[in-house]
């Protein structure tokens, strides 16, 4: 297996790793870099549990090769909280009981983070459209959508 040396920015820090040219970014994050917060639900880009931000864009890391991340900026769930402070989305998910088993939560929070960075005041429909690539089987999505809307208003500085 020929391995390539890849340099990236991972959760704000310069990070280098070796990965086989056929290894997905998901497997690289989980097996080489020990960041197991990004989950595999299907490995075919249909469930969104492996969502990371690649140059700021919500992306299924199971459909990206590790070598394609050369020179890119990667953000995973482990980078969402910042200096000991939870991100408003994380707080909103906890306060709204917007997770039950929690396996889809990392992927949804990362995808929602990308949404709120580009749509600070999304409608319910826009949130549902944006998150349709993130399957959840436990919650029926209701409290997840409420949590994202709450986080959006908190980030706009509105009192809950």
């Amino acid at each position: 297996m020929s391995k390539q040396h890849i340099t990236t920015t991972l959760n704000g820090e310069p990070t280098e790793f070796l990965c086989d040219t056929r290894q997905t970014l998901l497997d690289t994050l989980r097996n080489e870099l020990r960041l197991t917060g990004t989950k595999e639900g299907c490995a075919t880009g249909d469930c969104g549990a492996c969502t990371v931000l690649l140059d700021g864009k919500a992306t299924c890391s199971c459909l990206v090769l590790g070598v394609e991340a050369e020179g890119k900026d990667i953000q995973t769930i482990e980078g969402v909280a910042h200096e000991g402070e939870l991100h408003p989305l994380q707080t909103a998910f906890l306060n709204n009981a917007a997770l039950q088993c929690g396996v889809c939560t990392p992927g949804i929070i990362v995808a929602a983070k990308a949404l709120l960075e580009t749509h600070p005041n999304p409608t319910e429909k826009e949130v549902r459209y944006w998150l349709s690539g993130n399957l959840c089987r436990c919650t029926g999505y209701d409290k997840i959508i409420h949590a994202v809307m709450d986080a959006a208003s908190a980030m706009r500085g509105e009192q809950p």
Partner: protein
Amino acid sequence: MPSASTYSRPSSLDEALTFIQSTSGKALKILAGGTDLLIQMRAGLYPDTALLDIKNIPETMSITIEPNQVRIGAAAAASEICANIQLRQLYPGLVEGIEYIGSTQIQSRATFGGNLCNASPAADGVPALIAAGGTCLIVGPEGRRINPISTICTGPGETALGQGEFIAEFILPIPKPGSADAYLRFTPRNEMDIAVVGVAANLSVDADGTCTRAQVVIGAIAPTALVASDVAACLVDQPLTPKIIDKAGEIASQLGSPLTDKRGTSEYRHQIAGVLTKRAIKIAAERAKKAH
């Protein structure tokens, strides 16, 4: 993942060609968005295959609106294409087509080049590309050539591209005043689904609403996207009244040889082709009237 082999991400078309020459004789696959290719590789296809990643070449990544044409890089991501306001004004239907592909996450990667060359009969990006009457710049060991987009797909998973050839960009005409397109697809779920049927309508109307030009292309009812010329014929020189549009839908529902598979029966695809053709023509017509 099957056994590894080389991977290259050239920064120019020429650099890409030198890599292609270096792998001639060996299996080579072009990697654009990868949202189809990586799934196929994971299922064991293309083992020991060199990968040419074309997402670092200006021509394949850029979207440029020129006075008399529009150029869209074959590896430009759907999310970039959908964010381009000017492009959406010129070709709303074209943008709707690629916007349908997969989820937000897939939109960050999916490309017109990948969608077309994967050659799925149900590809959402293809009907509007063909209906726009566009051409594409093909680059390969024997040099460059320009072909109509409609000639690229030759069957499910098959294209007319030769060994070592790839599409660098798509070139579309600037639509004339009074012209517009629209794309609709049907899927049981609202998202994350493969089209049971997809219909692109691209037409022009004169000042009093008579159709002067029409092109209707239907996906998922034939081995490749079907250019429904007799649907177009039924519209040209006609005022786009409900009666005419219904007739167009009626014709559309007889076309192609749709399969029965896990996504729908052939009889159902015929019916839906008719319904979506009517709806797409109606939307394109309304947009065209406003585009005077």
